[in-house]
C-alpha cells in the first residue's frame, strides 16, 4: 500500500489553535499543542486503538458525551476541551475506578518510579477513594514465563499485552480469562508464555503487572542511567537503551526507531545482555603455554601475537564474526593486507562481487518499504530466526496495510499463515528456484529449473503472477526479502537470477520497492562495505593484491595444505559458526598460530588458539555497524570495559605498530574517520551526523552516487540441481534465533537453548517408521548427529532440516547433500 500522505488541518484544543495532520489520533495531535491527555491502553505501536480504559476522556464541542481521545481522529475545525470540570471529574472517576482493585503496593512494585499509573493517579486522580470493600486477590507473584513475572492484582485490564500477542507478534498465546471483575491475563492453555518477542509486553504494560524476572528488584529509576546504543547480536540491529547501574548493564529497553525496529525487541536482544557480566567471560589476555591457556599481561600477549604474525609473514588468513564493527573489520583488513601482505580474509562467506551487484543502492529497499509495499516476497530466509524484527514488520504490513505476502523457502516458515502464497523448494535448489521464478516473470523455460529445485511449476507461475500484477491487476511496489545464505548455497546462479528478477519487476531505482538482504551475521553488510571480503577493498574497490584471494572454505583448505600457517579470528570460531566442522578441525590442527579475539572460550579457541585477546561486548564498543538496508548506525559504550578488556581497534593498532606500521589511530573516532574516508559512499559521514538514529546512505543521493558501478551480471550462470533423494533425504540447515554464545551464557535464556531436532514431512516419517518426538540418528557417511523427530505438515517430502551452531549435535558436522535417518 502506498504511504499515506496526510493533509494538515487546524483544530482548537483548550483555546489554542493547533495544526496537525488530518486524522491523527487526538491524543497525539494534542501533544503538538503541548496538551497532555492521560492514557493507559492507547499505544500507537499496537495498531488500532481499543478504548478499553477510558482514561483519555475529553470534551468535544458538538458531541454531547465525553469522547475517548485515543480513538477520535482530529478533524478540521474541531474544538476540544481537556480542562473543564466535566473532564476533570471523569478523569478522577476513572482513576478511582482503576484503583478499586489495585493493591497500590508501590514500595515493593518494580514499576514504582516509572509507573504511568502512579503518574496519572498523582496528576489526574482525585487523591481519595470511597471504596472500603475488600479488593480482589490473586496469588502473586507468579511466573508468566521464566522471563516474565505477572502480578494479576496490579493489572488494570488495559489489553495491551493481549493485543501484542494477538495482533503484533501473532503468537496468539495471551488472552483475558473470565469476565468483569474476575478478568485476568494468562496464556490460553496455562502454559508459560514463551515466544520470541514475549519480553515486549513488559515494556508495554502500563503498571507493574508484567515485570522482567532478570531485572526483578535490581534497581529503581533513580538508581540507573539510560545509555542509548544499538543491539549487535543479529542483523536487525535494533536500537536499544541499556539500563546501567554501578557500571553493569541491568536491562535492555527498546529505543524506538521506525526505520529500524519500530520500537520492538526480540527476547534475545532484551535478555542476552546478561552474558556481559558472567564469570565465563574472558577478561584478560590468554596465552597458550604448555598446552593450556593462561592469563598473561597485555604486553606479553601483544608481543607474542606480533611475533607469531611476523613468523607467518604473508601466510595469514583472517575471519571475522558477526559482532565485528565496520571499524574493526576495516583495521583488520589493513593489518592483513597492508602489514602482512595477505589477501585471504573473509567474513560472510559469499562472493563479494555478488554482494556488490545486489547491494546496489538503486535496488535497495528500506525496512519501511516492507510495511508499505504492495507485495513482499520472502525467499530463502526465515525472518524470525535470521532477523527477528523483520518478522514483526512483515506481519504489520500484512495486517495493517494489506500487503500481499509470498513466502518461498525450503523449510516451512512461520509466515506461511500470513502469506497469500507460500511454496517450498528443495534445499540446495536455491539457484534453480530463483532461475525458475525469473523465467516465469520474464518468459523462458520454467520446467527444467523448477524440476531441479523440486518446486511446483504451477506455484511458481502463480507467484510470478502475484509479483507482476500485485494479485489484483494493479502492479505496485515489490520488496524481495532474500537470505544471503542463498548466495553461500548457490552463489553463482542466485545472484544473476535475482538481479534479472529485480529488473523484470522494475525494482531498480524505484522508491518503495527493491531488494532487502537478510544477512547471516549481524554486521555482514558493514564488513563487506568496509572491505573485509576476499579480493575486495573498502567500498568495493580494487585491491593491490595479486593471485587468488581465499574465501572461508579456501582459507580452511589452504590451512590444511599448509599454504597458510596463521589464522586471525576476530569474534569468530569456525568450529562453531562455519560449516564443515571436521575440515576446520583438521585445518586448525595444522595451523601454527591462531590469534583470536573473543568474549568466550568456545570449542575451537579452547583447543587451538595460541593467543586470545579478551573482546569487548557490544555494550562496551564504540564504532559503527551497517544495517541490512544500508543504515549506518553508531554503537556507543554504555559501560566501561570489564576486567582488563581493551578496545579491539587498539589491539589491532598495537599489533600493526609492533610489525612496523603505524595506523595513526589513537581513538575509536579516528578509526571511524579512516573508514569513512576509505569507503566512497561513507564519505562525509561523521559520528555526529550518524547520531542516535543512523544514516541510510542509499537514501542519500550524494552518497549513493559514490557507489562504484557494479560489474555486469554473469550471463552464463548455471544453477545447481538439488540432490535427488533416491530413498535418502536432502539435508537443509537453519540457525535458530536462540543460537549464540551470548544466549548460552545468559542465565535467564539458558532454558531456551535449542536441542537438535530433525524437521521432516509426515510422509517421510511414515516411510521410515519414526514418530514425532522419537530420538534418531541423522547422518551421511562418517558423521552423524542425534536429533529428535519433529513432524512439520508443510515440509517438502524428501527433505529434512537440522540446526547449525548449537553446542551439541550441531549439523555443521554433516556435509550433505543427502543424509539417512536411523533409529537411535
Amino acid at each position, binding site marked *: 500500500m502506498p504511504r499515506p500522505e496526510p493533509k494538515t488541518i487546524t483544530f482548537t484544543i483548550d483555546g489554542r489553535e493547533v495544526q496537525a495532520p488530518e486524522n491523527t489520533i487526538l491524543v497525539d495531535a494534542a501533544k503538538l499543542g503541548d496538551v497532555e491527555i492521560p492514557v493507559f491502553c492507547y499505544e500507537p505501536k499496537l495498531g488500532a486503538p481499543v478504548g478499553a480504559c477510558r482514561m483519555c476522556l475529553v470534551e468535544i464541542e458538538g458531541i454531547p458525551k465525553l469522547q475517548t481521545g485515543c480513538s477520535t481522529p482530529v478533524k478540521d475545525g474541531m474544538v476540544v476541551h481537556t480542562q473543564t470540570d466535566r473532564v476533570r471529574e471523569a478523569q478522577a472517576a476513572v482513576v478511582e475506578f482503576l484503583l478499586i482493585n489495585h493493591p497500590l503496593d508501590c*514500595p515493593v512494585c518494580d514499576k514504582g518510579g516509572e509507573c504511568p499509573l502512579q503518574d496519572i493517579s498523582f496528576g489526574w486522580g482525585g487523591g481519595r477513594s470511597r471504596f472500603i470493600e475488600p479488593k480482589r486477590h490473586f496469588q502473586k507473584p507468579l511466573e508468566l514465563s521464566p522471563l516474565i513475572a505477572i502480578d494479576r492484582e496490579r493489572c488494570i485490564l488495559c489489553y495491551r499485552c493481549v493485543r501484542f500477542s494477538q495482533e503484533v507478534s501473532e503468537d496468539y498465546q495471551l488472552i483475558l480469562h473470565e469476565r468483569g471483575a474476575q478478568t485476568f491475563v494468562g496464556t490460553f492453555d496455562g502454559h508459560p508464555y514463551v515466544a520470541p518477542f514475549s519480553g515486549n509486553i513488559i515494556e508495554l504494560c502500563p503498571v507493574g503487572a508484567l515485570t522482567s524476572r532478570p531485572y526483578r528488584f535490581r534497581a529503581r529509576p533513580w538508581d540507573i542511567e539510560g545509555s542509548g546504543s544499538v543491539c549487535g547480536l543479529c542483523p536487525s540491529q535494533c536500537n536499544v537503551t541499556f539500563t546501567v547501574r554501578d557500571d553493569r548493564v541491568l536491562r535492555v529497553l527498546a529505543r524506538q526507531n521506525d526505520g529500524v525496529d519500530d520500537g520492538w525487541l526480540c527476547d534475545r536482544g532484551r535478555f542476552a545482555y546478561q552474558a556481559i557480566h558472567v564469570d565465563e567471560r574472558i577478561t584478560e589476555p590468554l596465552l597458550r603455554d604448555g598446552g593450556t591457556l593462561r592469563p598473561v599481561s597485555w604486553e606479553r600477549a601483544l608481543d607474542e601475537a606480533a611475533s607469531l604474525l611476523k613468523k607467518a609473514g604473508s601466510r595469514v588468513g583472517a575471519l571475522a564474526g558477526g559482532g565485528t564493527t565496520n571499524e574493526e573489520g576495516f583495521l583488520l583488513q589493513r593489518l592483513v593486507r597492508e602489514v602482512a601482505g595477505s589477501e585471504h580474509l573473509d567474513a560472510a562467506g559469499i562472493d563479494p562481487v555478488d554482494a556488490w551487484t545486489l547491494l546496489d543502492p538503486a535496488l535497495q529497499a528500506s525496512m519501511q518499504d516492507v510495511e508499505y509495499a504492495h507485495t513482499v516476497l520472502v525467499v530463502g530466509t526465515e525472518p524470525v530466526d535470521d532477523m527477528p524484527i523483520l518478522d514483526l514488520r512483515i506481519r504489520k504490513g500484512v495486517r495493517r496495510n494489506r500487503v500481499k505476502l509470498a513466502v518461498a523457502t525450503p523449510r516451512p516458515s512461520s509466515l506461511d499463515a500470513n502469506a497469500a502464497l507460500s511454496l517450498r523448494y528443495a534445499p540446495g535448489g536455491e539457484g534453480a528456484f530463483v532461475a525458475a521464478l525469473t523465467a516465469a516473470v520474464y518468459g523462458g523455460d520454467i520446467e527444467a529449473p523448477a524440476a531441479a529445485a523440486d518446486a511446483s511449476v504451477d506455484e511458481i507461475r502463480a507467484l510470478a503472477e502475484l509479483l507482476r500484477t500485485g494479485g489484483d491487476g494493479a502492479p505496485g511496489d515489490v520488496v524481495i526479502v532474500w537470505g544471503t545464505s542463498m548466495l553461500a548455497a548457490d552463489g553463482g546462479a542466485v545472484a544473476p537470477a535475482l538481479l534479472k528478477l529485480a529488473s523484470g519487476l522494475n525494482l531498480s531505482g524505484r522508491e518503495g520497492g527493491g531488494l532487502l538482504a537478510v544477512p547471516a551475521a549481524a554486521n555482514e553488510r558493514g564488513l563487506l562495505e568496509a572491505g573485509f571480503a576476499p579480493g575486495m577493498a573498502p567500498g568495493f574497490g580494487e585491491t593491490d593484491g595479486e593471485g587468488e584471494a581465499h574465501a572461508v572454505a579456501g582459507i580452511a583448505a589452504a590451512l590444511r595444505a599448509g599454504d597458510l600457517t596463521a589464522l586471525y579470528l576476530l569474534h569468530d570460531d569456525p568450529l562453531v559458526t562455519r560449516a564443515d566442522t571436521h575440515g576446520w578441525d583438521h585445518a586448525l590442527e595444522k595451523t601454527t598460530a591462531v590469534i583470536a579475539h573473543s568474549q568466550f572460550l568456545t570449542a575451537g579457541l579452547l583447543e587451538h588458539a595460541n593467543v586470545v585477546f579478551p573482546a569487548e561486548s557490544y555494550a562496551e564498543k564504540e564504532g559503527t555497524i551497517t544495517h541490512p538496508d544500508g543504515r549506518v548506525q553508531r554503537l556507543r559504550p554504555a559501560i566501561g570495559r570489564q576486567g582488563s578488556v581493551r578496545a579491539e581497534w587498539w589491539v589491532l593498532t598495537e599489533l600493526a605498530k609492533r610489525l612496523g606500521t603505524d595506523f595513526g589511530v589513537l581513538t575509536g573516532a579516528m578509526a571511524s574517520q579512516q573508514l569513512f574516508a576509505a569507503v566512497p559512499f561513507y564519505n562525509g559521514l561523521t559520528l555526529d551526523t550518524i547520531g542516535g538514529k543512523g544514516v541510510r546512505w542509499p537514501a542519500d543521493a550524494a552518497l549513493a552516487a559514490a557507489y562504484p558501478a557494479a560489474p555486469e551480471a554473469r550471463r552464463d550462470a548455471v544453477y545447481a540441481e538439488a540432490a535427488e533423494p533416491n530413498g535418502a533425504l536432502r539435508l537443509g540447515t537453519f540457525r535458530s534465533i536462540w543460537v549464540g554464545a551470548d544466549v548460552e551464557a545468559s542465565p535467564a535464556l539458558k532454558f531456551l537453548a535449542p536441542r537438535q531436532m530433525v524437521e521432516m514431512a509426515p510422509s517421510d516419517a511414515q516411510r521410515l517408521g519414526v514418530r514425532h518426538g522419537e530420538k534418531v540418528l541423522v547422518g551421511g557417511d562418517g558423521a552423524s548427529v542425534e536429533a529428535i523427530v519433529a513432524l512439520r505438515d508443510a515440509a517438502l517430502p524428501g527433505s529434512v532440516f537440522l540446526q547449525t551452531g548449537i553446542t551439541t549435535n550441531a549439523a555443521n558436522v554433516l556435509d550433505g547433500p543427502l543424509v539417512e535417518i536411523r533409529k537411535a
Partner: protein
Amino acid sequence: MSWTPGDDAIHVVRPPAPGAAGGTYRVFAETLRGLKTTFARVAEGVHTIQYPEQKVPVYPRFRGRHRLHKFEDTGLEKCVGCSLCAAACPADCIRVVAAENTPEHRVSAGERYAAVYEINLSRCIFCGYCEVACPFDAITMGNDYEMSDYQRSDLIFTKEMLLAEPVERTPLRAEGE
C-alpha cells in the same frame, strides 16, 4: 594629584568628657556590675560537662544517626528495599540494592528486601527526609551523634550496623526539661 580635604572633610563629633563623678562611676560601679555575674557563677559551682564521660541529653526529636527497625513480633526487617529514602535524600548518600524474599530466606515482610543498605554518614546532612519518605517507618533518625572515626570508609554504615542497637545510649532530655 594631592588630596585637599576641602569642605567634605569628616567632622568628628565627640561626646562631652564624663567629668570626675561620671568617670569614677564608670571605672568602679560598671566594672562591679559585671563582676557580679562572674561571682554569681563562681558561687554556682562548676558547669563544664566532662565530655565524653558526661553527655548532654538530647531532645527526643534530635536527628542523629539513623536506625533501621525490625518488627518486634516476627523479627522481620521493616525495610522492603523500595529505595524511596535514596530518592528523597538530597545528599545522595543512601544506597539500596534490593533482592527477592524466598520462603527459605525471608528477611522482610514484603516480596522484596534490602540486600544492601548503606548510608554514607560523612555525606549525610541529617535532614531527616529519608525518615519522612519511608512508607514503612523502617528508617528513623536516631539520637546518636557520636560518629567520628579515623577512616572515611568507616563512615559508610551498613545495614547490620544500622539495625544494631547503639553500643551506648545517648541520654534523652526528659519531658519539659
